[in-house]
């Protein structure tokens, strides 16, 4: 199963998604609208929202700036608490570690709570290839897994679907009578997954934040599936991005609240679970393994221009307000992270060549930066991504030739005058339609050059005045 589409060819996949959309109104538009409304309601509850936001931004940045020190503290805490730590340089290493842990114990099914990092390292298809079944237990993730799809949103995986889609899916795949009532559909999922929780041999959780002062691994959930898979099975595998570190429990409390408000418009999520380590005597879990994944993060960290993106707490608010995301949803982006944050992260985590069009999938309206709870300058980073994308193109690509010619013409007076003279000549003799520029002249008229250049006109006028 290869759920992820390649992040390449963004334009093409956006075009086909716009062409194929049959549903009106769009689920992505409707569902993001609801999320934005809920978020605004909660944001307005804090009269000092801007102050809190800038405090959190600073704290998050401080944590990013001192990651090495915080990791050193964490590692001694984790050792003390009995957590086994594995460092993974890239996705392949992370997959190898996880598969090894399960295979060595003869485990054939692992229950997952929601983790975007697990999507990033594409663990599911890898596990399946080695005969281990990954079972998603977050309702939205469970739905998209049954549909053999990737999640279309960071916090609302089934954001691209209407209730009827889920009704049909459950009737088909779970053999339950068709219903489109979310409560009934949820009850079906609860029943199916409950038995699996109780017999699970291994659970996998995503870590929202690791707390340096205590070593706790914090997971934010609403459904309680994160608690299930970290409480019931003998083996817990925790997956964590290298940058997901916070210094104190107090900082965690702040981050948790702004995450909840930004993501779903809740004051707090149903659960914030803090896993300290394995059971010391009786009880579960018996083993806790933590996989800390780099996969390009340290390189982002080394570059001061890009470092700020590591503040991201994956709330998804920038997706909800993005006019591009609202129209096309998450799937056309390919890769793991859609929307503005994805357009910045995807080329950075892979490389610019892998996702050359992503930074262009934006109108640079700035709504993403405005709503970001940790003030990531997304428009600036998108511009930077565009620059890198262009620079990574071959030196003789048509666009580069055009622009370097333009630059040379515009910086020399003689060349400029010669060029406009030539253009005037060409414009007169050739009809415009013979000079199409793709994506430009389809919807715009080429500007017409004046019959007489300003310079000539000015010279004449000036001379007349003198005489």
């Amino acid at each position, binding site marked *: 199963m290869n759920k992820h589409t390649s992040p390449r060819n963004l334009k093409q996949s956006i075009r086909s998604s716009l062409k194929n959309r049959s549903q009106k109104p769009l*689920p992505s538009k409707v*569902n993001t609208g*609801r*999320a934005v409304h*809920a978020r605004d309601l909660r944001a307005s509850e804090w009269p000092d929202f801007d102050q809190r936001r800038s405090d959190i931004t600073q704290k998050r940045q401080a944590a990013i700036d001192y990651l090495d020190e915080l990791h050193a503290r964490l590692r001694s805490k984790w050792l003390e608490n009995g957590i086994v730590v594995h460092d993974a340089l890239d996705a392949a290493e992370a997959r190898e570690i996880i598969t090894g842990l399960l295979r060595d114990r003869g485990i054939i099914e692992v229950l997952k709570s929601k983790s975007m990092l697990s999507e990033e390292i594409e663990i599911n298809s890898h596990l399946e290839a080695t005969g281990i079944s990954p079972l998603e237990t977050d*309702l*939205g993730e469970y*739905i998209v897994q049954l549909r053999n799809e990737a999640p279309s949103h960071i916090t*609302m*995986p*089934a954001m691209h*679907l*209407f*209730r009827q889609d*889920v009704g049909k899916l459950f009737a088909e795949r779970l053999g339950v009578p068709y219903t489109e009532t*979310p*409560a009934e*559909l*949820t009850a079906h*999922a*609860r029943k199916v*997954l*409950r038995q699996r*929780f*109780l017999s699970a041999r291994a659970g996998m959780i995503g870590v929202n934040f690791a707390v340096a002062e*205590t070593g*706790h691994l914090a997971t934010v959930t*609403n*459904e*309680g*599936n994160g*608690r*299930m898979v970290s*409480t*019931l099975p*003998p083996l817990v595998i925790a997956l964590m991005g290298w940058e997901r570190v916070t210094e104190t*429990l*107090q900082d*965690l*409390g*702040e981050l*948790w*609240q702004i995450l909840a408000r930004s993501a779903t418009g*809740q*004051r*707090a*999520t*149903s*659960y*914030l*679970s*803090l*896993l*300290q*380590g394995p*059971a010391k005597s*009786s*009880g*579960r*879990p018996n083993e806790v393994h933590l996989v800390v994944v780099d996969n390009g993060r340290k390189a982002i960290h080394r570059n001061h221009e890009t470092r700020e993106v590591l503040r991201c707490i994956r709330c998804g608010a920038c997706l909800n307000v993005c006019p591009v995301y609202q129209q096309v949803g998450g799937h056309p982006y390919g890769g793991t992270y859609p929307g503005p944050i994805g357009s910045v992260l995807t080329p950075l985590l892979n490389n610019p060549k892998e996702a050359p069009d992503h930074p262009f999938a934006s109108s640079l309206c700035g709504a993403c930066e405005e709503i970001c709870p940790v003030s990531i300058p997304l428009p600036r980073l998108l511009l930077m991504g565009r620059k890198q994308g262009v620079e990574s193109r071959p030196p003789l690509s048509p666009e580069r030739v055009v622009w370097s010619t333009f630059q040379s013409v515009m910086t020399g007076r003689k060349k400029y005058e010669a060029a406009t003279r030539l253009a005037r000549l060409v414009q007169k003799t050739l009809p415009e339609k013979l000079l199409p520029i793709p994506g430009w002249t389809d919807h715009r008229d080429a500007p017409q050059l004046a019959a007489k250049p300003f310079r000539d006109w000015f010279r004449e006028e000036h001379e007349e005045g003198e005489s």
Partner: protein
Amino acid sequence: MTYSPSLDRLKSVLQEVDTELIVTTRQMFPEVFHSWLEQNGVLSVAVGSDALLGELDVKQMAQDQKVGIADLSIHDSELHDADRWHQILAGTDAGITSAIGIAEETGSVLLIPHSPDERAISLLPPIHLIVLEQSKVVPDIATLIKRWQDVGAEGSNVFVTGPSRTADIEKELVLGVHGPMTVTVILLG
């Protein structure tokens, strides 16, 4: 520092997260507890080993009402089997715990870190009852964390804000996806 909580505010915040708040006194607790058991049709309970619940003798109270007790000690020693224990908890009507405190601003409850054996008491039964003293009401999450830090902030723990919920299908709220469907807070004045 003394803090005088606004119980009205707490009540409405809890209502927003679909949690019932019952304010009573220690003297009245047995009666309140009795009618709570009846109203919720609770026929079996699992009781955490939190000090307050011991003081109140909640287990005995439940037994007096002919309510079954899911007790780890019964399945302990050589018979101890975590899977079996979890099955029993999943078949129990209500889990009862106390808490370090409750935040007025959000309605979040910070549980007392339970032993690994007891962590599922607040998770697997469909109803979760939280009993705590009124002095444990604090203004916000920051104060709640401070209270936990004052006693060492040790162990695995969880903040609970209302029942398990999802809005994954069209953003429509549904309670009780995987965890408890009903959460009740009893405050003892």
